[in-house]
């Protein structure tokens, strides 16, 4: 490595712009920070030697320089910003509303939004945030962040550590805040030192030269916050592994017991009761709002019993459950156990559990028989009295009439409809009956008009169903850590500033210069206070507005 020896005696690494010790501009390197074109020195990285600015030969150098450019970083951020915005034009796939024309994305977008919807879907924007290119973009931001920070942090750290109180006059003159005073007494200098100390500056003097410094740690703010961001990105990466992250959904009916998915069949859940409460319309505080909007729910809650499966001593032994806990789960109040969390996520009111039908002879209105369908477990055929038999030829749990004929919206038994084939002992074939659509107009439909027997609903049982999400997320603490470090870093960089004031002796007088990375207004006020009651000239702001 080529080293550069400054006239002050300090040996600087190759690529240095301003001597680490005395700040003298190093000839031949001034173009790196653009100092050759301006009077004021670029102090951003103290003129330290950054790898990206020094080496540019091998391919690795080129990649390094590319990613450590803030210009590239900002472009990546802006592209991510625009892409994110595009993804909100239409709902993402997971937010296609339940009452949409169709929940199939290939139909939904075009049907609902026309041509632009079709394009949105075909370009894959409906799953934008999990697309490979969006993730790549975020990953590139991460890479850029790491390289950028490494490129600057180390040399900056060294430069700040090696700085001396005595600075080269050309360094001081080219600071934004500068003044020169020809005659200053020792008493006045002492006064300045006291005033600096009073303002909590750390004062160093070397051979009569003064460096007062405050808040250097705030220079590390950006690097700290970038570390926080990296931790968050790593956490997001880890989250893709199913050991770290489980996401399941269980539907469980009132009174029913079912295994909790994702727990390796270790835990079972029973829904004791689902509760939906609404606000009292007589509550005068809310009366007007309720009148306008209709009933407003105040609580969704599932009371559950959690069971734990006993260890099986012999494989194949019958499952034994023991009560593990009882809990009330409601919105904003999930239930946690053994690393898992259960959330009240959804519900279905009044689903059909069983339906009882009667078969009647149309000619004499005599009932032949009744049969009950358990909708959790419908049979193919039901044998009735006198050799009658009913077969279910079609079953739509949530019936509706689609463009292509009868269909079921979901598997929830919200509006069951059946096509029955009723075979009678006396005739050969079977009569076809359509029965259902209780939510709209109950229909009992006979396509041929020649049926002799009618099937009709005479009784039904209903139940509520709770939907609970099951989560286990070991990455949460990592996200929390990343977020905390990020916050510390931004606050460190934003709410404190690195201020420096140099008072260097020149002949009988002094050169006074000041630099801060932010909040020049504050620094100017500091200097004003420091030199008040002395003959030292107030600094001039030499900023060149461009």
């Amino acid at each position, binding site marked *: 490595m080529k080293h550069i020896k400054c006239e002050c005696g300090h040996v600087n690494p190759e690529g240095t712009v301003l001597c680490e010790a005395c700040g003298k501009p190093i000839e031949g390197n001034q173009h790196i920070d653009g100092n050759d074109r301006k009077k004021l020195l670029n102090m951003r990285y103290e003129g330290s030697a950054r790898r990206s600015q020094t080496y540019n030969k091998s391919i690795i150098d080129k990649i390094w320089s590319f990613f450590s450019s*803030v210009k590239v970083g900002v472009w990546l951020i802006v592209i991510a910003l625009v892409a994110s*915005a595009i*993804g909100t034009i239409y709902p993402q796939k997971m937010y296609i509303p339940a009452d949409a024309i169709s929940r199939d994305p290939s139909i939904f977008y075009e049907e609902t939004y026309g041509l632009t919807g079709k394009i949105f879907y075909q370009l894959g924007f409906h799953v934008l945030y999990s697309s490979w290119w969006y993730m790549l973009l975020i990953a590139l931001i991460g890479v850029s962040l790491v390289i950028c920070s490494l490129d600057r942090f180390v040399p900056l750290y060294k430069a700040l550590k090696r700085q001396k109180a005595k600075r080269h006059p050309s360094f001081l003159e080219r600071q934004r805040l500068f003044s020169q005073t020809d005659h200053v007494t020792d008493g006045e200098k002492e006064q300045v030192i006291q005033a600096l100390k009073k303002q909590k500056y750390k004062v160093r003097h070397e051979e009569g030269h003064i460096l007062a410094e405050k808040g250097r740690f705030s220079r590390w703010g950006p690097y700290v916050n970038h570390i926080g961001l990296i931790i968050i990105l790593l956490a997001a990466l880890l989250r893709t592994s199913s050991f770290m992250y489980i996401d399941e959904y269980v539907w469980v009916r009132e009174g029913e017991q079912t295994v909790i998915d994702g727990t390796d069949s270790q835990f079972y859940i029973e829904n004791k009761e689902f509760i939906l409460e609404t606000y009292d319309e007589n*509550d005068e*505080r809310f009366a007007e709002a309720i009148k306008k909007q209709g009933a407003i729910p105040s609580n969704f809650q599932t009371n559950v019993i959690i069971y734990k499966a006993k260890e099986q001593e012999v494989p194949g032994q019958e499952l034994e459950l023991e009560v593990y806990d009882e809990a009330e789960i*409601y919105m904003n109040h999930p239930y946690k156990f053994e690393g898992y969390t259960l959330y009240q996520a959804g519900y279905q009111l009044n689903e059909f559990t069983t339906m009882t039908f009667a078969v009647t002879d149309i000619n004499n209105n005599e009932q032949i028989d009744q049969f009950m369908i358990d909708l959790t477990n419908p049979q193919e055929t039901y044998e009735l009295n006198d050799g009658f038999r009913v077969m279910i030829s079609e079953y739509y749990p949530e019936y509706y009439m689609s463009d292509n004929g009868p269909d079921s919206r979901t598997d929830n038994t919200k509006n069951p409809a059946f096509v029955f084939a009723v075979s009678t002992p006396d005739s050969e074939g079977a009569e076809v009956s359509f029965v259902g659509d209780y939510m709209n107009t109950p229909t009992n439909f006979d396509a041929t008009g020649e049926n002799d027997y009618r099937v009709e609903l005479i009784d039904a049982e209903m139940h509520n169903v709770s939907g609970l999400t099951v989560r286990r997320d070991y990455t949460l603490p990592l996200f929390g850590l990343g977020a905390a470090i990020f916050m510390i870093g931004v606050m460190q960089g*934003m709410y404190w500033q690195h201020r420096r004031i140099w008072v260097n002796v020149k002949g009988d007088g002094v050169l006074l210069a000041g630099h801060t990375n932010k909040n020049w207004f504050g620094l100017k006020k500091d200097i004003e206070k420091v030199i008040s009651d002395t003959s030292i000239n107030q600094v001039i702001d030499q900023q060149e507005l461009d």
Partner: protein
Amino acid sequence: MDWFSISSGALYTAFILYLIATFFFGATIKDKKTTHKGKSGTIGIALTIAGLIAQLVYFITRWIASGHAPVSNMFEFVTSFGMGLVLAFLILYFIYRITVLGLFALPIAMILIAYASMFPTEIAPLVPSLKSHWLYIHVTTVSLGNAILAVSFVSGLIFLIRQIDQTVKNKKNIWLELIIYSLFLFIGFIVISSVFNATNYEAVYGYQYNDKSYQSTYHMPPIAGPHNGEILTPGAMKPLFEAPSWMHGKDAGQKLNTIIWSIMAGTLIYGIVRLVLRKRVGAAIQPYLNKTNPDMLDEVTYRAVTIGFPVFTLGGLIFAAIWAQIAWDRFWGWDPKEVWALITWFFYAAFLHLRLSRGWHGEKSAWLAVGGFAIIMFNIIVVNLVLAGLHSYA
């Protein structure tokens, strides 16, 4: 008097105090001597503080009346944003002592409050997903963060009005004029809503959406009716045209109608102002800003971002994520509101990087500050009312 009426009265009082304070800040501009601090500036600040206290009274009494912090619907949220803006202005005022900030910040806060009041103001109970202490923690920090960032818009706007050449028509002053014009659109919305509220206009239209029947209650005469709609109120006027079919969602026609009326009213008011001034509004204001120091304004723009950015990150991303984890079982779900918070955050991160590393000072910074405010307003208005996901306020 019950708590609810006290709270409404207090908000009204705050509005009036801000209005009077604005006039005092206006007077500081005419002060010939820049050196003496000026009485009117002091009175202006005192009135602003009084107004803020009145608004705090509104906030607290409404909280008592409803049993929850008043940040749960569009009216309450936008009002608290306006309150935050006043507080943020005061913070920056006490750092930099620039009274002209108040001359612009207070009217913007007043526009926000008036805008908010056009939405239903009655107290609504909290739906289960909002019943959490995180509601207060999250929403108030976001409001405050947004408000501090909005101060950078205020100083950026003043900077632009002061600095941009108005002698000949050019791209820059047309853009600036567009920004000012868009403020007039808000005023248009406020004026036209108040007019029709006063006349008690109401007409109901039925329409089909996704095979279901809905009704929209129009409070302004229907220029744009619902797509495939029918008149339900006897004698109500027939819409001039129907909202195009690609505008989906409930009440799409009604929202479009409100927008059309607001644009008409805003444009009319703007037109009258232009006729009176006989020049661009920006050009008319410019001479009054001669004495403001552009460096100082630029510093305020940056400072507001550096103060606001961490607050916004904390409220809009971190607290939001914690609450989402508790309420919705995932801390991040790419809901439109969340995405727009992320966009805001990306935007201000870009602002900071451009400023720090690429030297985007002065005018460039000011334009960016305006852009950031546009994003914030987009998130509050368009996302809530149009893109609405889980966070729907309206």
